[in-house]
Every structure is written in structure tokens, then in C-alpha cells.
């Protein structure tokens, strides 16, 4: 690490390089493609074996659940929702960073996103898969879950669109679809790169099919960029809406501890916080293992730490706000819900959450600590733990002690609950490892656009030298003051060098 270039400087006069190690285009291509092309490493094999074993356990648990009933979990009356929904909200939250990086940072022209967006997006999709699984299997009769969709039927029954759960179905479904399209569309040029580099026929066919016959035509690039921009513009409100809608599950209910208007921004901030933490958890080992230090640089990590710190502070503010609102409402049930959260039987959950989400990220204020990767990694792991406990606290403490003391009861997870939580990580890492093994983990085409020599240095008069402009910005929408055709004809005979 000592020999790494510190490109984390925030000095506005100096533009920090986003690609280090002196890589040119081919260097970038080699670095990234090498991961998919080289022989399977032992480390990958071991990691994959572990991940797929947990996936197998998850499958076995689901089989047991299906044949037996949702009672295999610890859910009860009053805690009708337990681990499955905690896990659902947790994973949906994790799934926020990818599209946020792709869409919002794209619109804000944060060029550093290009180093991490691909696998952050992949992470998003896999997290959404993990998330979507839980509500699907948590319903009492999963084989009838298709009733959530408005399909014409002989009963003439339709879904009930006032239910936030149905909003969830639409929000998470849309989010999963759009994220996937975003990820895949962005990957097409890179798949074409892998296709063009492959020597084996199988790979050429496989990559060839998924590359859709991409030729790098600039007429294609034009529409591609426009589509990408539109997707980013659409995904930006979407990414904010998804966790808002998920938070409506709670916010629109009347349960003390759930029924609060601060939830949508609070959840979104929490999701971004947790999502970036997860990106860091994945990126820090990945850049070591796959040799991506030149593409995922200190600066990338530094920026992510700052986002974590910012969103973490929003989360802390939301925590404080909840308590203030409860106190200020003079509503006994609200006040009790928060007293109970801190001093009730699940106090350990609250303290874990507070430590992980409110105290731990404060270390990120210090640039020195941000540069120590093990510190960042630890804080990121803690942030994920904290975010899981946040959802646990919200769901479990509110449900176990609501209005009537007669129905108060503790929630205790069963072994199946724990195995399925671990199993969902198995699913996530299985997919992620497969992605790392076979797909371009860094958006090569995008990285190349932020490399210095990707910009034309035309000697022609009138060309705008604008380093900081987005490369994707549609030029033709700018007022074209300098018409190229005015008086300069590059194909005039005098310009054509005579044949040797």
C-alpha cells in the first residue's frame, strides 16, 4: 500500500488522476479482462465453495419451509414479521449503492464512479435478488404469491392498490428490472471486449451473444449514451423512491415506532450508507485479489468514505429526530415505543445499532484513517451490522410491544431464521463470485473515457477545451457557435499529404 499513489487530494487546482499506474487503454483492458480470462485461482475456488455451500443450506431451508409452513421461523403473534422482513429491508438497502453510483453520480458528473460502478451495480442486482426472495417465501402461501400481480382471472379479483406491500412489489420489481437493464446495457461494450479477446470458441459464442454484436460504432454510441443518460435520469428518482416505498410499509401503518413521516429520507440515507459500506466491503478485498488497485484507487475509497460519513450523519439525525418527535408528540404510545427501544428487552440491539451507525463512522472524519484500508473495512462491516440491527430494532421492538400490554410478547429467532440469513449471504456471494469470474468487473469503456488521452486535442480552431465536462453530455444540444464548416476544409488538396 505504501507504493500506492495518494490521489485523494481535494485541491481544486489539481485534478487527481482516476487511473493510476500509468495504464493506457490496452492496459486498462488487460487489467480488467485478465480477471475473467486467467485461470481460476485457488482463493476464488475456496470462496466459491463456501458461498455455494451456504446457498445450498438456503435452498434446503426454503424446501423445509415450503413443505412445512412459515412456522419454521420464530415469527409469532404479535411479531408477525421477523427475520425475513428484516433481511428484506436490509438487502434492499444494500441494493441502493449500485444504482446510486451509476445514476446519481453520473448525473452529477462524478467521474470517479467509473471505477466502481460496474460491480456496485452487480452488487445491487444481487442484493435485490436476495431481497426479493424474502417477501416471496415469507408469505403463508407462496404458491399464490402471483395474486400480487394484476392478472385477469375467473374470480374477477384484483390486487388492492392501497397496500404498501403492493407498492413494494411494484417498486422493488421496477428497481430490479431497471437496475438490471442499466447494468447490462452498460456492460454490452465490455462484453464485446471480452468477446473480441477470447480465444476459446465457447467464450466467443457466449460473450458474442450477450454482446449483441456490438461494434463500437459511434452512431450506436450516440444512441447508447443517450439511452444511458435517460436511464440515469429515470433511475435517480427511482433509487430514491424504492427505499421510500419500502419505508411506507412501516410509515403508513399505525404502529408506534413505525408510524413516522421521517422514514422515507431516513431509510434512503440509511440505504445509501449501508450500500456504500457494502461496496467498500467488496471493493477493498477485490482490488487486492484482482489487481485493480490502479482502477479502484485510494481516491475512490476516500470518496466512498465521505459519502458514508455524510449519509451516516443523516441517519444519526434521523435517529435523534425520531426521539424528538416521540417526545414532542406527547403521545404515550410513541414515547413508550422509543423508551422501550433503548431500555426494553431488546436494548442490546439498539446499542449495537447506535454504536455501528452513529459512533463508528465518526472515525471517517480523519483523512489518515480513511487511508488505512483495514480501518475503512472494519467500519464498513460494522455499518452493515448496524444497518441490519436498525431494521431489526424497527421491526421487532415495535411489533413486540404495541398498544395492548396483553399481547406483548418476545420474538425469538429459530435456527432456520439464522441459517436463512447466512444463506442469503451465500446466495449473494455466489452470484458475486460468478460475476467476478466471468464478467468485466470494471466498466472499461467508461474508464477509458475518463482517461486523459480519451479527449481529443484537436489543433483546429474553435474547439472547446473543457476538461471537466462530462463526456456523455450531448454536444449537439449546445449552441453551436463555431461552425466547423466555416472556412476550413480539412480535405482540401493542400491538406492531403502526397503519397510517398
Amino acid at each position: 500500500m505504501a507504493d500506492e499513489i495518494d490521489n485523494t487530494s481535494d485541491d481544486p487546482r489539481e485534478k487527481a488522476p482516476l487511473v493510476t499506474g500509468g495504464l493506457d487503454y490496452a492496459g486498462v483492458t488487460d487489467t480488467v479482462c485478465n480477471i475473467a480470462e486467467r485461470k481460476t485461482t485457488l482463493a476464488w475456488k475456496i470462496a466459491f465453495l463456501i458461498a455455494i455451500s451456504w446457498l445450498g443450506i438456503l435452498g434446503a431451508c426454503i424446501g423445509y419451509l415450503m413443505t412445512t409452513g412459515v412456522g419454521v421461523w420464530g415469527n409469532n403473534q404479535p411479531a408477525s414479521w421477523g427475520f425475513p422482513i428484516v433481511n428484506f429491508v436490509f438487502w434492499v438497502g444494500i441494493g441502493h449503492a449500485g444504482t446510486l453510483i451509476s445514476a446519481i453520480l453520473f448525473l452529477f458528473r462524478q467521474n470517479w464512479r467509473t471505477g466502481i460502478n460496474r460491480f456496485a451495480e452487480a452488487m445491487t442486482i444481487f442484493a435485490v435478488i436476495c431481497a426479493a426472495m424474502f417477501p416471496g417465501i415469507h408469505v403463508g402461501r407462496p404458491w399464490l404469491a402471483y395474486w400480487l400481480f394484476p392478472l385477469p382471472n375467473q374470480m374477477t379479483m384484483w390486487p388492492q392498490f392501497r397496500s404498501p406491500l403492493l407498492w413494494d412489489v411494484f417498486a422493488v420489481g421496477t428497481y430490479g428490472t431497471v437496475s438490471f437493464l442499466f447494468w447490462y446495457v452498460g456492460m454490452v461494450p465490455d462484453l464485446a471486449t471480452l468477446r473480441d479477446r477470447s480465444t476459446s470458441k465457447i467464450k466467443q459464442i457466449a460473450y458474442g451473444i450477450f454482446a449483441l454484436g456490438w461494434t463500437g460504432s459511434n452512431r450506436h454510441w450516440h444512441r447508447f449514451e443517450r439511452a444511458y443518460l435517460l436511464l440515469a435520469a429515470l433511475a435517480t428518482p427511482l433509487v430514491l423512491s424504492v427505499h421510500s416505498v419500502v419505508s411506507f410499509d412501516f410509515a403508513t401503518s399505525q404502529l408506534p415506532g413505525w408510524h413516522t413521516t421521517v422514514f422515507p429520507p431516513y431509510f434512503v440515507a440509511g440505504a445509501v450508507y449501508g450500500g456504500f459500506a457494502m461496496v467498500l466491503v467488496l471493493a477493498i478485498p477485490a482490488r487486492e485479489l484482482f489487481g485493480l488497485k490502479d482502477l479502484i484507487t485510494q481516491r475512490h475509497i476516500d470518496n466512498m468514505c465521505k459519502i458514508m460519513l455524510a449519509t451516516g450523519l443523516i441517519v444519526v439525525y434521523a435517529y435523534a429526530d425520531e426521539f424528538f418527535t416521540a417526545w414532542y408528540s406527547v403521545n404515550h404510545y410513541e414515547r413508550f415505543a422509543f423508551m422501550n427501544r433503548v431500555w426494553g428487552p431488546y436494548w442490546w440491539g439498539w446499542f449495537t445499532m447506535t454504536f455501528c451507525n452513529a459512533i463508528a463512522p465518526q472515525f471517517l472524519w480523519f483523512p489518515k484513517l480513511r487511508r488505512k484500508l483495514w480501518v475503512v473495512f472494519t467500519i464498513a462491516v460494522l455499518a452493515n451490522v448496524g444497518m441490519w440491527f436498525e431494521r431489526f430494532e424497527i421491526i421487532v421492538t415495535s411489533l413486540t410491544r404495541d398498544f395492548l400490554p396483553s399481547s406483548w410478547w418476545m420474538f425469538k429467532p429459530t435456527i432456520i431464521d439464522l441459517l436463512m440469513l447466512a444463506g442469503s449471504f451465500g446466495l449473494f456471494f455466489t452470484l458475486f463470485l460468478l460475476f467476478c469470474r466471468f464478467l468485466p468487473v470494471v466498466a472499461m469503456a467508461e474508464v477509458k473515457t475518463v482517461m486523459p488521452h480519451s479527449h481529443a486535442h484537436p489543433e483546429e480552431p474553435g474547439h472547446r477545451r473543457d476538461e471537466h465536462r462530462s463526456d456523455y453530455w450531448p454536444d449537439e444540444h449546445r449552441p453551436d457557435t463555431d461552425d466547423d464548416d466555416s472556412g476550413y476544409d480539412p480535405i482540401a488538396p493542400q491538406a492531403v499529404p502526397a503519397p510517398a
Partner: protein
Amino acid sequence: MPSINHHVTGIEYWRSLEQLADAPEVLDALDKEFPGYEADTIASSSRRGFLKLMGASLALAGIGLTGCRRWPEEHLAPYSSNPRGRIPGVPEQYATMWELGGVASGLLVTSYDGRPIKIEGNPTHPSSWTVKGKIGSADGFAQASLLEMYDPQRSAKVVARTKTGEKRDSTWKAFESFASKHFGEQKADGSGFAILSESSSSLSVADQKKRLLAAFPKAQWFEYEPLTRDGERDGAKTAFGRPVRPVLHLDKAAIVVTLDADLLSTHPAHVRYAADWSARRRSADPSGEKPGEMSRVYVAECGFSITGSVADERLPIDPSRIYPVAKSLAARLGVTGVTSDEHLSEMEEKWVASAAADLKQAGSAGVVAVGPAAPPHAHALGYAMNQAIGAVGNTVMLVEEQEADRPSHFQAIADLAGQITSGKITTLLIIGGNPAYDAPADLAFAKAIESVPVTVRLGLYEDETSAVCKWHLPRAHYLESWGDARSWDGTAGIVQPLILPLYGGKSAIEILAIFSGESETAGEQIVRRTWKPLLKGDDFDLEFRRVLEAGVLEGSEFPAAKVEPRAVSYPAAEPRRPGLYIRFEPDAHTYDGRFANNGWLQETPDPLTKLLWENAANFSKKDADALGVTTDDVVSISVNGATLPVAVYVLVGQPVGVIGLSLGYGRTVSGNIGNDLGFNTYLLRTSNAPYSILAAEVRKTSESHELVMTQNHHLIDSVGAAGRDKRIGEKYESGKIIHEASFAAYKANPGAALGGRTVGLQLFDPPNQFNSPHAWGMTIDLNTCIGCNACAVACQAENNIPIVGKQQCRKHREMNWIRIDRYFKGAPDDPRPEVIYQPMACQHCENAPCEQVCPVGATMHDSEGLNTMVYNRCIGTRYCSNNCPYKVRRFNYFDYHSQDPRHTGMPWNNLPDNQQMETVDKIKRMVFNPEVTVRMRGVMEKCTYCVQRIHRTATAKRAEGKDVEDGDIITACQQACPTQAIVFGNLNDADAEVTKLQKNPRAYAVLDATLDTRPRTRYLAKIRNPAATETAKEA
């Protein structure tokens, strides 16, 4: 074509067809009789045994939720010939009676196509009516006895055991040939022949007993019940020289003083007493029957009973203090020969002074009741006090006791054990009961039975006693057999069978007839023979039928006893000995152990401890602290050399110095449901001290035992306790969800009951009033609810609610649609905590929070205000339950109906929606109410306001062109409630009782002010009538 309104009888048709039959065109048509059919395709019909039993048709209705083809092929089996007057698909009701511990109560059994599916109280029987002629109540045991009848583990075979104890199946024929040989030899002598019977009030049993003793003059008849009321008999003997039975009239009682008498729950006449008691509580309202009057109840008790929990002035004391308290009270009332020389504690002194003052003032409107566990002299004092205040003849009737000359049950069984040990008994017939399990431990009765050469047992189950008898005979359930019985006041009625014996059992009278070698062994004929002299009319058949239909023989009460009090010398009370008293109590689930295999009762929480599926040792907080134990810790209790480890339950309000132990758990041979649950406290019981005994040693052990209960909020951390207290209110004060007031305050200002209630303001006019064409609503009177669980069992039976089992209850997944929330007010060590019961079922909120969150529309409102729950649409997201502020929704985490309650959560590798159809036991299905869907796994369920009853009545009324009137529709819980605390009806009807009650100044809706849920169920605030506040006010 005849008008549909004029039903044309079959005869008319027949006539016209007869004429038709000879018409030429008909004969012509008949030639091609069955066009379209080939003769050989006609298959002979197969049938199932139980279909025949059930008669027609709806065998499968209501079972399971779905099928395929769309539907699997179903068969219909009509009657061969229609039974007279029976319309398939219309439930019918039959009156009958049942006995528990030798005292009967009247029942009305609903039968659906030949299978009894619901037991209710008989509204015409004085033991069970709550609104005379309209509503009858039956307690939880009586209602749950239905499940007992269908119990697949009930004894179905005659079993013979060889001398070596080897068991083999036998037949009635084999037994009869053995009996005729064995008893034929003993005829006219019978020395060495003993009969041990459970207690019975049956006239026919008494007649058969006479006949048997005539056939075997030297035979001896013993009677034993583990939970006996012989203490009262002994007390009467002390007071009057012979036993008499006190029959109370609490509807006339302004002041009720009980000394360890649980009149409202474990007393045999508790339904009557509770109904009468409630009349004097409801009258607190300015609009009541006797407006502005309210009884005051003083309870001195050694445990914590239901009566104690609704008492206005409760005095928790240990068993040794009952007598001195009674004596002091008597002295103050001026009972002759009693001097007030007892030293009382401050609490006792206050209670006695207040009670004495009230009793004196009330005069003949007062009543003193003494419980069975009290010593005879306390009973004598009770009789004397009633005499002294003039209550006898008004609130207390003394009537003749049945079999006045029999020895007490504990004497009888000790005598029998002695005779067996000395080898005098060679043949022992045991009718019912379960003495091998429940006889006092010092008698080692199971061993004794084994030593008798010939033992015959008639029992419902092959239980502990059957296991040590040479012959076990299956007994017919009372719903399967003929018989007769008398209630506490002596009113006689007939027990009629609702179904043929499912498992080929025989009743006690039939068995006794076989033993006596009588020619008449058919139950019905025996009963008719017994009743012949009782019925006055000329036409016996008609009179008998009339009694059968009404279920009651009017005017058959026991005659009043003409007794003169004797001069009794009352000894000084013995000083209290140090140590902890053990007090044996009947169990709320199993009674004395007999209902151990009854899942409905196992899963009905104990009214006060809310324990399920097991018992525990109730400790006061003070005693538990002294011992260093708390709930779930195991202590070891030693008495007379016997030691029992038992789990502790710290019960708020348990008298200090008393360990409450309920009898009836720790069964080992009861069936799959009841085996190996709880603690067998009979092991500590001795024949000389059957009610209470001083423990030799109580020691803390290192073990712990996680007790299963439905509510534990009285055992929580300080944050939770603070939140709870705010909601239920401090002692004597209203809280947020519970409202209460003292009677004095309420009389002065009816609004006091709801003091400080806020009214929610509406932001918009509700778009729907939910009142077309009816507006269903309910009120629940917290003032009269005694938490007895009758409604919960009624709901379970009516609505096909599954039994989930102990493990599921431990996870808190019990399914009772109506739960009775029990709150204690007061510190954990408060000796006199306030108790409030709040039955909580779906509130049918107009702005129901559950509805808006269901993504598939499985729960929504109908136009009459019912919050509908459509099981077949439910996919089980459980969101509705989360959003229900009352947490009254219940979820089928597993397919509970198709699983053994002791082993839930077994995988099922088939189409999930078919699980019930393929795995629910055929016999178990017969108990289902066909008008209510049997829910499968993965769906939510909840109280429906008994929508099936609403529709059944409303449809029938509409077919007649009428609308429902008030009182036509009675929900199952309302029906069962002995105190009429629950009232249901149409809020559109201004004259309906429910409408009036919802306008009562005590009426409020739980959480409505907070959440604007607009519940259709409203509660009436509790009114307490403590002596203290009144005196304080006067002062």
C-alpha cells in the same frame, strides 16, 4: 304450478303421479326409460361407514380450501328414507344434561346432519339459563366435552389383562360370558364385591344401585370424587346434625360474603350463580333493572379465584385463618355462642369490620357462603350467620341433600383401601373416575387395585386405573347414551344420546344392569322405567317426550330441608404454624385430570395465571422472594415423605404463606394430548388433609422450567411496567385502554367512568356508514365479565379453531379468536391487587387498519360493518396483523388441523392446499362446524362476529319475508357468557339492547380516541363497589 310459498306435500304429488302412471303417454315414455345410459355402466355404489352415520350429504363441506378438476369428484349419499322432521343441512338442537362431580347442568346440543357439533347451555333449565327461555350458558368444561366425545383416543375396545399383566383385546361378548359366570356364582351374596363409583346425581344410577345391592346384599358401594364438596356436608352435619345443601340466590343478594368459596367458577352451580350475580352488577347503571343498586362482594380466600378477582373487598389469607375470620365475623353479627376472642391482623380486622357492618345493614339481603375446603365449624358459623341476618329463606335456601347418609368421599376411599389391603375385597367394579391416579397418595390405591383378584373398570379412556384392572370396558360418552341427572338445586332432566356410540361403549346404567343380571339392559328402557313414577300425566310417552324436549322436569327441585340449628360449641382457632401451606385447587384445564386429553381445554388459558398446557405452583411475591425463586424456577416441595419438584409461578395477589397447587396434571396414561404435561400434585395429597396441608419443606432447586402462558406482561422490566400501568391505569383509576370507576363516583356522576376521555375530531366525513341493511355491533361489559373462558371455548367450537399445541403456544401462536386480557393493577407484592378482565376479539373497526394494508384484498368491509376475512383469498403476508392495534388476528403458521398438537411442524410433500383433505382424521372432521371454513396453513383468521349465525338467521328470516329482530342472532360468545357481559345486535335498531348499551355512559371504544379506528365493539367501563371509598365519601 303451485306457488312456492305453499309447500306441496309428497302425498299430493303421489296422487297426481298415480294418476299419471296409467296415462298412455307416460307408459309410452317409459319404454325408453333411460336414454343415454348403458345398463352395464351402472356401478354399484360404495359407501363409507361414517356417511351412513351422518346421513346425508355435506360430508366434505367446509373442509379444506381448494381442489382440482376444478373440483375432485364428490359423492352425495341421500337418506334411504328421510327421518321424520329432519331437513338435511339444517342444524337441530336437542336438550340434554351433563354431570361433573355429581352435579348436573342443562345443555342444548346442536346437531348437524346427525353429528353433534356444538354444546350450549339449555335456556329452559334453571341451572343454565342466563336469559330465561332465550339464552343458556354452559361452562368451558361442558362445551369442550364435545371434543372428548370425538376424541379418537377414547377407549374403543374391551381390554382384558391376564394375571401377569399382559394386555389383550377382547370383546363385549367375552366380557359378558365372564360376567355371567363370575357374578352368577356370587348371586344373592356378594361378599367381597365392592363397587367404586364416581359421584352421580342420576336417578337411574340410584335405581340401578338399589337393584344391584338387592342382587348382591353383601356387596359394598363406595363413592369417590377427588374434588368433592363434602366439606359443606360435614359443616351442615356439625350445624344441623344432617347434611343439607345451601342453594344461593345471588340475584337477591346485596352483600355477598364468601369464605374461601369460589361461587362464580368452581362451584357446581356457578353458571346460575354468575348469572344471578351479574344482575346485581348491571343494575349499577341508572337505566338497569333495579337502577342505581349494586351488590358488594367480600371474598376471603386462600388462593386467587375468579370470585376473588371480581370481589370488591378481597382478603387473601392462609387456610388456617378462615376459621378465626369466620368466627370474628359471626361474633360481630351476634351469632349466639360465638365470642370474638380471635386475634386478627390489621387487614383482616378491616375486612371483617366492613363486612359485618354491611351484612348487618343488608339483613336478609346479605349472604354468607363458605367453601368446601373450610373446616366444618366454619361452615357451621356460615349457616349460623345466615340464620342470624335472616338470609335463610331469602338469599339462601337450605334443601335436602342427596344420599344424606353416605360417608364422605375421603372416608369412603380410605375405607375401601383398608378393606382391600386386608384382603376383604375379591371383586372390584370401578365406574368412571380414575382412582389409580387421583386417590390420595397415602392410600397407594393403584397398588391396592392390582391386588384385587377381579377388577372391572368402566371408563371413557384406557387410563391409569384401566392399566391396573383386569378388565377395561369402554364407556359410552354422555352424548352417546341415555341417562338422567339433577342439577345443584335438584332439578332433574334426561340425558339423551345425540349419536350412536362411536366406539361401541356402554353407559354406567347399562353396565350395572349387566352386573345385576337384569333382563333390561338397554339404556333408554332403564331411564323410562326410572322416570315412570316421576311423571304425573296420563300419557307417559307424551310426558317423557316433553321432558326430553325441554331437557328439564319442572318443579323437581330438592325439597326445602326442615332443619333446626343445634347449639354448637366453637373451639378456639389453632395458632398458625410456621411454614408454607399447600392448597389444592381444581385445575382450569383438566378439572381433576379427567380432561387431560382435551385439546380445547388444554389450550384455554387459566383465567388468572394464563398458563396453558400445564400447571405450576402459585407463589406470592413475598414467599417467592423469601425463597429466592421466581417464575419458571423449580422448587421441590415435600409433604409426608413425598417430594415433588414443581415450577414456580409468581401470582400477584396469591395469599402470603400459601402455595397454590392445581390438581390434574402429570397424567401418564391419558392419551397423546394429555400425557406427560405439568406436575402431578396428587402425589402430595393425603386422605386426612385433602384440601390444604402444611408443607414439610420447600426447597429451591437449580432447575428451571419454561412455563407456557399467553400473557406475561405482569412479569416485565420497568420500562414495560411503566408503559403498562399508564395504559391500564393505576389502582382504582382509569387508564388509556381500561376505564373504571367506583360505584359511589359513578352514582354521583355517570361520566366519571370515562373521566378524561378525549373525542377524536374528523378531518373528513366518513364516506361509508356501513349500515346497510344492518349495522352489527357488540358491547362487552367489563363490569360483569368474570374471565371464565366460556366464550373462548364456545368460539373455539363454533368456529373450528385449531389446537396448536404446547410448543406453538410457547412461541405465542395460539389461535383463540377471543382472548381474555387479564390485567393486575397494583405492585407485584400487593396482597390485594385489582384484576380486570377485558375480552378482546376483532373490534370490527369501521376504519379498520388491517384492511388498507392487505395487498390482495383478503380482508375488507362489508356493507353491514363486518370486517370480513376471506381465507381463500389470503396469501399470508401477515401485514394485517401487524397493523391491528388490538392484535386480535391469528395466523396459521402450520396446518394445525392436520397435525398432532404435540408434534406440529411436520413436512408435507404434496400439494399444500390438499393437506387437510388428506390428513385430517375422519373422526376429527366430524366435530367441525360445516358452516365455517376450516382454515389451512398460511392464512390469517379472526373473529367474524359469527357471520355464519348472522347469515343463517337473516336468510331464514328473509325467506319468511321478515327482518331480523333483536335477540334473533346470538353470537357463540354471547351465548356462552354466563353473565351476559357480551351483547350483540343491530345498531340500526334503536330499541336493540346493543344500541342502548352503546349509548350507556360507561361505553367506550378501546384506542378509538388515539387511532380513530371506530370499533363496532364497545366496552362498558368497570364499576367497583369497594367499602373503603364509600366510607371515605361519607366521612
